[in-house]
């Protein structure tokens, strides 16, 4: 058995915010809408795969400070665009599994318990376009210059495109940062690293979701890099990158 993971190691990135410290419980549900395809002559029910769906429920303590939980979730409630949400069940160490979704709040509940208990907040989130399982390509950590992060080996190439998230939560003295995802069939040996995704130049805290079209091959190894980093003397960007093959 690999590592057993206590719930305390989870990471919850919501757009340009790290909401981890506000929550104590999370459930991530994925479902297939299976269709009954049984026909005459069959002795058993048969099924076919339908459309995927996904839901996330987050529960934590209510916090009304504008920059904290209530303020952030209130902003997202009913927003026109989904929020770039990256969920790390086992922290965001490079190679660890992540769940990626474009999150839309479906329900937002503030629970006022008895006078002697803390108020709680529960958010029910619908995944707009399903929930993808992927890997972290960069932990939520600070970089101050151009850098090549460690690669992740998928064991083989994949052939149905991908989705990637950038969540940048802290930006200090940043003018512009270019973050890319690259691929190689042999970890940068004879097959040099090649760009497959380029996030919009980062100028402050931000989040972005990119996709590679279905049917596109992604090579066995992927990594993320900072190819350009400009700013003043104390420049620093804290960000995470998640990548999911489809």
């Amino acid at each position, binding site marked *: *058995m690999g590592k057993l993971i*206590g719930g305390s190691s989870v990471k919850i990135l919501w757009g340009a915010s790290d909401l981890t410290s506000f929550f*104590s419980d999370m459930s991530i*549900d994925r479902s297939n809408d299976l269709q009954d395809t049984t026909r005459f002559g069959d*002795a*058993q029910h048969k099924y076919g795969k339908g459309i995927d769906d996904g839901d996330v429920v987050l529960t934590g303590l209510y916090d009304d400070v504008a920059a904290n939980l209530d303020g952030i979730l209130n902003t997202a409630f009913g927003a026109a665009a989904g929020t770039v949400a990256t969920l790390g*069940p086992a922290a965001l160490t490079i190679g660890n599994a992540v769940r990626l979704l474009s999150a839309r709040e479906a329900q937002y509940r503030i629970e006022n318990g008895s006078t002697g208990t803390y108020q709680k907040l529960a958010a029910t989130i619908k995944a707009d376009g399903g929930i993808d399982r992927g890997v972290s390509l960069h932990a939520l950590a600070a970089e101050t210059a151009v850098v090549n992060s460690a690669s992740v080996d998928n064991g083989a190439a994949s052939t149905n495109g991908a989705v990637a998230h950038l969540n940048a939560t802290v930006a200090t003295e940043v003018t512009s940062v270019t973050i890319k995802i690259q691929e190689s069939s042999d970890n940068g040996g004879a097959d040099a690293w090649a760009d497959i995704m380029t996030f919009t130049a980062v100028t402050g805290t931000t989040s972005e979701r990119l996709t590679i079209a279905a049917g596109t091959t992604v090579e066995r190894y992927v990594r993320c890099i900072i190819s350009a980093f400009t700013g003043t003397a104390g420049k620093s960007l804290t960000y995470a990158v998640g990548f999911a093959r489809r």
Partner: protein
Amino acid sequence: MGTSLGKNAVVQMNAVAITTWVNQADLQRVVDLLDAHTFGDTAKEYAPGLVDGTLGVTCLYDDVAGNIDAAANTAFTAAAGVVVNIYPVGTAVGKAYYTGTAFMRNERLGVNVAQLETLSFDLQFSGGISRALVV
């Protein structure tokens, strides 16, 4: 007597032995019983129709490559389903086991700050479940 502790069960999904992570596996086989009673009957009568089967699995979550999270994701995304084998009392020769092709209907990753993370999922068999003996 062929009774056994649950710890002896073996579960395989898409040729991956996931037993190491599983702490509960519930196999349910169902027959559609069709109400065949008519006027004059004093009690309901039934005729067997199509058979069906599901497997509910609960695991401890493990995201290491090749372990339960990866295996479950493969099953979730498999367009044609995956082969699932359940050995209730182990894989010794002569022991009964159940096998079939199944789709993952749903998956839940549960995280609580004070507990081990869990991964649970429901598998829907397509085309029935076969019972056989290990050879």
